[in-house]
C-alpha cells in the first residue's frame, strides 16, 4: 500500500511537463555519496488485513484489561459517552490543519473558544489558552510564565506535586539558571505551612502546588494564596483530576493566579499515557505572558461574528526567540474531545459525576480502613484518591492482589522513600459497589 493516487501514465505525463525523463533526476541535488544504494531494511508492505492482525496480536500481549484497576495518580479511568467518540471522529475534525485560515476553520475555532470558556468557568479565572501538551508540561510552562511575570529566579514547588510533573519542571528550568525549591508536606498530606513561610522571600516568583495533590489531599488554597501574595509571589495551582473542579470551589475564586493541569479525565481514554490534554488559565492581567494558542472573537467584513487565532505576537512564528513558548502544534483534537465531553455532561451531569466520585471514594476509604492493619496515611480531606498505609511493603501486597486480578493502587516508595508501605488508591464512578467490595474482600484475604 502506498496511498498514492498517481498512476504510471500520470507520472510519465508529469515528467514530460517538467522536462525530464525520470524521477531520479529530481534528486540530483543530493550528492551521490550520501544517497542510499539499496532499499531501507524495513518490514512490510502489509495488506490491510495483515496490518490489523499484526496489531491484534501485539494488543493481545497487553493484559491490563483482565484486571480490576484502582490506579490513578495523573491518569484516570472515567466513563466516556458514545457521542464523544462519534462526533470527534468526524473527518472534518480529525483531518484539518491548525486554523490559520479562519474563514474555512470556524468549526475548529469555535470549539477552541468554547473550550477556553469552559476552562475559565471551571477554574474561576479570566483567560484560558487552546491547550498544552499535558499536565506535566503545563506545570513547567506555568513556572516559566510566573518567572516572566515576576522576573525573579526562585520557584517554589510542592513536594506533593505529581513526581513526573516535578521532573519535567527540573528538565525545563535547569538550563535557565532558575532555582527550584521543594516545599515539604505535613501530616495532613498538605503543604507544610511553616516550611513554606520559612522559604518564601522577596526573590520568589511563584508557589506551584497541586490540589487535590498527588496524595489526593485537597490543599487550603486560600491560605496558600494569602501567604504567597504577602510576598508578592504568584500562586499557580496544578489540577490533575479536573472532575474535582465541579465540586470544589474554583481555585481562581480562592486567589490562584494561574491554574494549569491535565484534562485527560474529560473524555480522553487512558491510552497508555497519551495523547492527553494540558490546559492553562490565568488572570487577565497576565494574558500577554500566557503560552500557547488562543482563539478570540471578532467580526467579518459583513459584521458577522467569527473566531480567529489571536494575540499571536506572543508566539514563535512572529516573535521567534522572544516568544512566550516554543509551542506550535498542541492538542487541539484532545481539546475538542474534552469540549464535547463537558458539554454533553453539562452543568448537572458534571456536578453529579464529581459527587459520585467523592461518594465512592469515601465508601472505599471507609471499607478498606476497616480491614485490620490498614490505616489512612494522611488526615487531610480527599476527593477521589487517598493514600493508605499497610502493615508490609506495598510492593509485596500489590503482587498478591495482582494474583487475584486486582491492580490495587500506585506504589509511592520510589518517589517518597518514607512511604514504602503506602499506596495511592483511586476510585471513580466506574467502580460499582460490587467492584469496591471485591477489592475490600481481596485485600482482607491478602492481609489475613
Amino acid at each position: 500500500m502506498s496511498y498514492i493516487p498517481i498512476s504510471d501514465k500520470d507520472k510519465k505525463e508529469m515528467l514530460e511537463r517538467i522536462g525530464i525523463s525520470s524521477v531520479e533526476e529530481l534528486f540530483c541535488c543530493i550528492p551521490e555519496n550520501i544517497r542510499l544504494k539499496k532499499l531501507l531494511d524495513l518490514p512490510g508492505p502489509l495488506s490491510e488485513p495483515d496490518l490489523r492482525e499484526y496489531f491484534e496480536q501485539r494488543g493481545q500481549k497487553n493484559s491490563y484489561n483482565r484486571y480490576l484497576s484502582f490506579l490513578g495518580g495523573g491518569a484516570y479511568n472515567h466513563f466516556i459517552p458514545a457521542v464523544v467518540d462519534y462526533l470527534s471522529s468526524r473527518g472534518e475534525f480529525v483531518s484539518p490543519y491548525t486554523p490559520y485560515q479562519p474563514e474555512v476553520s470556524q468549526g475548529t475555532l469555535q470549539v477552541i473558544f468554547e473550550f477556553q470558556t469552559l476552562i475559565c468557568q471551571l477554574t474561576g479565572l479570566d483567560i484560558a489558552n487552546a491547550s498544552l501538551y499535558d499536565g506535566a508540561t503545563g506545570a513547567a510552562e506555568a513556572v516559566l510564565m510566573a518567572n516572566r511575570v515576576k522576573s525573579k529566579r526562585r520557584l517554589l514547588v510542592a513536594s506533593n506535586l505529581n513526581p513526573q510533573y516535578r521532573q519535567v519542571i527540573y528538565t525545563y528550568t535547569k538550563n535557565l539558571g532558575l532555582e527550584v525549591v521543594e516545599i515539604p508536606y505535613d501530616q495532613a498530606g498538605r503543604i507544610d505551612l511553616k516550611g513554606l513561610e520559612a522559604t518564601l522571600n522577596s526573590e520568589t516568583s511563584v508557589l506551584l502546588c497541586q490540589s487535590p495533590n498527588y496524595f489526593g489531599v485537597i490543599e487550603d488554597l486560600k491560605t496558600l494564596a494569602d501567604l504567597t501574595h504577602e510576598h508578592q509571589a504568584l500562586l499557580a495551582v496544578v489540577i490533575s483530576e479536573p472532575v474535582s473542579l465541579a465540586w470544589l470551589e474554583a481555585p481562581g475564586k480562592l486567589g490562584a493566579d494561574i491554574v494549569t493541569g491535565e484534562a485527560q479525565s474529560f473524555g480522553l481514554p487512558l491510552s497508555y499515557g497519551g495523547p492527553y490534554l494540558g490546559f492553562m488559565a490565568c488572570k487577565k492581567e497576565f494574558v500577554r505572558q500566557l503560552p500557547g494558542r488562543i482563539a478570540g472573537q471578532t467580526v467579518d467584513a459583513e459584521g458577522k461574528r467569527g473566531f480567529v487565532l489571536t494575540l499571536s505576537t506572543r508566539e514563535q512564528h512572529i516573535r521567534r526567540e522572544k516568544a512566550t513558548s516554543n509551542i506550535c502544534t498542541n492538542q487541539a483534537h484532545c481539546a475538542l474531545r474534552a469540549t464535547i465531553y463537558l458539554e454533553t455532561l453539562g452543568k448537572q451531569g458534571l456536578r453529579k459525576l464529581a459527587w459520585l466520585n467523592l461518594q465512592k471514594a469515601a465508601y472505599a476509604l471507609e471499607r478498606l480502613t476497616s480491614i485490620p492493619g490498614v490505616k489512612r496515611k494522611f488526615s487531610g480531606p480527599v476527593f477521589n484518591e487517598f493514600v493508605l498505609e499497610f502493615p508490609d511493603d506495598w510492593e509485596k501486597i500489590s503482587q498478591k492482589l495482582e494474583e487475584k486480578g486486582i491492580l490495587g493502587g500506585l506504589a509511592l516508595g520510589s518517589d517518597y522513600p518514607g512511604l514504602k508501605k503506602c499506596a495511592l488508591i483511586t476510585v471513580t464512578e466506574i467502580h460499582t459497589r460490587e467492584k469496591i467490595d471485591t477489592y475490600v474482600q481481596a485485600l482482607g484475604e491478602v492481609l489475613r
Partner: protein
Amino acid sequence: MINVIREPLIFEISSPGKTAVRLPELDIPEKKDLLSDVPLRENIEGFPEVSETEITRHFTRLSQMNYCVDFGFYPLGSCTMKYNPKVNEKIAGMECFTSGHPLSPEKLVQGNLELMKTLEKLLCEITGMDAVTLQPAAGAHGELTGMMLIRAYHEAHGNPRKYVLIPDSAHGTNPSSAHICGYTVKEIKSNERGTISLEDLAKEMTEEVAALMVTNPNTLGVFESDICEIAAIVHDQGGFVYMDGANLNALAGITRPGEMKVDVLHLNLHKTFSTPHGGGGPGSGPVAVKKILEPYLPVPIIEEKDGRYHLNYNRPQSIGRVKSFYGQFLVMLKALAYILALGPQGLKEMTEVAVLNSNYLRKSLEGIYHLKYDSPTLHECVFSDKFQKDFGVSNLDISKRLLDYGLHPPTMSFPLIVHGALMIEPTETESRRDLDLFIEAMKAIDREARENLELLRTAPHITYVRRLDEVQAARNPILRWEKKD
C-alpha cells in the same frame, strides 16, 4: 455544506435542567457530611445544559464549517498535509490500546512496549541514527528535547557554550526552542541559492557555539548539498548538527540524516508519517540521535531482553523527563501502521511522488508566479506575490481567493527571506486531478489580479464567514463567552 444556518455558541442555546447523558445512580449509602471543612462550589456558573440531539447537531454543524484533508487539497508548505489512512484510526482505537493505564505493571503492557520499541527501531533505520526517544509531544517539543541533549553533552564536558546558529530561512520554533534551552541565537544569512554559505558559517562557528540548527531540505525546499561540509565545519569546533526533520518527506528512502553527519534530529509523525493533524494536534515529535548523545536521552528508555520489554529509569546522565509517561502513544501506533503498510518500496515511492508532485506544480506555475530562488527544489517550492503586487494584490488576497475555489491556500507566514511568500507542498497523496485544479485556480487568480482587483481584495466570497478582522481581535481581545446581563 449549507451556509445558511448560523450555529450559536453552545452557551447561547443552553437551558436549565438539560443533560445529554444519563449517569448511574449512587449504589452505596450517601454520606452527608463529606468535605464539610473545605470550600465548595454550589454551581458552575454559565456551564451549558443541552440535550444529546442538540450536542450532535452543534458539533456536526461546526464540523461542516471546517476545511480538511478528507475534503480537499491542502498545499501548506512545511506542514506535509498528506492523506490520513483510515485503517490507522481503527488500529489506534482498539480497546487493547486505549484502555491501558500508563502506570500498569510492566508485564501487563508488553504489547505496547514491543510496538514502541519496534517504531524506535524503524525510525532509526529510516533516519540512519542510533537511538530514538518517542517522548516529545510535537515537533517543537522535539526541537527543545534535542537542544537539551546537546546542552547536557556540553555541560558534561565542562562548558554548555553560549550560541546556537540558525539560518534566516528557519521556522520560528527553531530560535524559540534554542532560547528556552538557555542559548542565544545567531542568525546565518542565506546565500543567493537560498542555502547556507560555507564561508559565513565558518566565520560564525566558534568554540562558543553549541550547535547549528539546520532544516534539510530547507524551508525553500532546497537541499543543502554541502551538508557534509557544513557538518565538518560545525564538528571541527566541537559543535553539534541539529536537523529539523519537518521536511523528511523529501528524503525518506532516498538518503538519511545519519549519512549527512547529523547528530540529532526530530521527526514529525503528524507530517511524514501521516498521522492526522486534528486541527492543531496531537502530533508526536520523536528525537533520533547518534551514539554520542544517547546517554542523555529522556527517561524512561525502553529496553528489550530475551523478548521481554522493560522501562529503564536508571540513566544518570539523562536530561530527565520532558513529558508525562512515554509520549503520544496512540499517535505512535498510527505512524507505525503507516510504515508497515508502506514497506521500504512504498516509503521510497512516497518520497519520489511527493517530489514529483511538487516539481509538477512548480513547473506549471513558474513564470506566472515569481520564484525568488531558482535552485532545484524537492518536496515544496516557494513562490511569491511579486508579479501580482504590481496590480496591488498580496499573497493574503491570493490565499483568500483560493478559498472561493474550494482550495486551501499555501503557507504565507514564512520563510521570512521571501517577502509575500506562497509556500506550496502538495505531498504524494494528491491526484493529478487535484493538482490540476489547484494550478488552474492559481492561473485564474493571476488573471483576476489584472482584471478584477476588487474581487481579490474582498475575497473570500462564498465561505461561511467573509474575511475576518484579525486586528480587532488582537486589539480588543474577547477570549471567552460571558453571560450578558
